[in-house]
């Protein structure tokens, strides 16, 4: 009989992986996670710790229970996107213009 987590779609698998990551960061416990799912990933080759989920490793788009490495974290990818659409603005200058020095 298939385990509960084996039938989850990728987005739901990743949801619980994010919850495990949040818990490892000191956030709420991942209550209600599919039984055995945490252990299944922790025993896989390529598991880099929960803090590094979505940072250095993720799950295969085609095989959501298979770990694959990430080149950039989801946050780095988002920052790159945001930087493209929002201009970096110049620094604050409240000192006025400075002419010659006596």
């Amino acid at each position, binding site marked *: 009989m298939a385990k509960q987590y084996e039938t989850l779609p990728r987005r739901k698998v990743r*949801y619980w992986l994010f919850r495990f990551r949040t818990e490892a960061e000191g956030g709420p416990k991942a209550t209600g996670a599919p039984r055995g799912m945490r252990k299944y990933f922790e025993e896989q080759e390529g598991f880099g710790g929960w803090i590094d989920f979505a940072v250095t490793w993720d799950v295969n788009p085609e095989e959501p229970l298979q770990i694959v490495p990430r080149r950039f974290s989801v*946050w780095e990818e988002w920052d790159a996107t*945001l930087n493209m659409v929002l201009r970096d603005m110049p620094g604050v200058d409240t000192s006025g213009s400075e002419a010659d020095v006596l």
Partner: protein
Amino acid sequence: MAKIVDPDSLNQNTEVYIYTDVKAIQLVEAGNLSDTDPGAESGVTGQALYSFLKEEWQSDSDLNVLKFPIKMIYEAQFEFQNDWLLGDSDGTKDAQSIDLIRDAGFRVANNNENYAVIVSLGSFATDVDLAYYQQVQGFDQPTTDFDKSGEINEPVLISDSDNDLTGYLKLFLREYAKLYDEYNLLDEQGLSSLTYAAYKLPLANEADINVSTVDSDIEADSDLATMTIDYITGNLFATHDPASDYVTLDVVYATDADAGDRWYRADTDISNTSDNPSTDANWVAYPGEKQVGTAYYAYNRIIDFKNIAKEDPYQWVQWQLRLDTDINDNVACDSYGTVNGNVAKDMLYWVGDKLTTRPGVFIANHNANDQNDIDLYDITVDGGGLDTDGVALTSTKRQYPFVAAGNMVFSTNLVADCDAVYWMYFETAAFGNYNSSDAVLVKDQNGSDITGSITAQNISFTFDYDYATDGGRTPGSDAPVAVAAMGLDSAEWVDATFTITRATGLSFPVNAADERNYSNP
């Protein structure tokens, strides 16, 4: 916890509740979603929320019977549409849900609310540093604290059905013992108005090594309590032109020989002005005029240091700039009005050991020992006047003439001799060398001869290095001097030669032999 940027971090009925009956979406601090400080490290991006809702709409038959709630315009801007809003199960606007949005400004069409999201760039010294903002220009206008401390990433309501606050947004970061920062979003980024979008802007701070006294001690210090800040009204700051018309409070610099290169302020609207404002009743002396060296310059914020050494007054000023009360002491009884400290323009900063003023700020009654360590930035004539905050558009550094200073250090037999006296002469001078009948006494910065009784081992002296011409001296040059001293009963006559250089902390030791022969029984 981390900011949610991936829609897979969200789950219906954990982080996101969708109330179809009242068309409300509620974001809840649960599971992967947090609203902790700093805002840059919590919440959920608009794009992640949008992407999550799309996936839910695809798979949830209770949802896809309804029109979709969000129109995403681009990554940093979206709208709640089709009567949806961020609300609770009653369909009431939910402030917590709004606080959780990151990286995207948004509009809620059904209640006509528009939110800009402010994203700060740069580091805050600590995550407890709390920035605040002002949405109506004016030194008497209130401020609002950001919801979360630390680096900013949070929505600010910029307009609704009752208020339009899209024309001004200024951020401040002023914390005890930290350097101050501020940012006028529309001015700095050349915007005509704000819209519901994300705005990145620089705002950062770091430790201020020149502040160490706690606020309560600054406030309780009776000497500092006598200090004042005076704001002076005036506009224009241009060279006086008799052919021009002027309006009340225009400030001019009159270079006519009779006017004496001084500053004047129009007391009324003026046309056909005279050549000489000093004798024209329509003009009054500008109260912000200050003499630095031999010339007069214009300033519009005067801080009276009350002769206190500069380190403590700086801390007092920094404290004043965090008060939400009026800091304009109105010493000149001008009509500048209320200036709340927490929105007043920054006034002082340090360049090494030099206390430096922002444009238009003058330090009055500084301690004499600080004279060489103060740089004053004026309102430069014909420099375009002032900006909308009253800050000079063009400013020039003005410095007091350099005062050389030091101590004559007398031997103990001179100090012990009640009749001991000293003289400081120019060793070589155009009008007469030392050891001649025309010898010239050196004068201190106040014009007094450097001579007197020896009452202590260290007797200080000052010297107007940049301007003194006594004895035909060339100003700004090193001055060779001789210090002669003598007692009666205890110390013989002695002299020693030194050079006054462009420095402070000079030390001239004068050691007399013990007197063994003087007698006057």
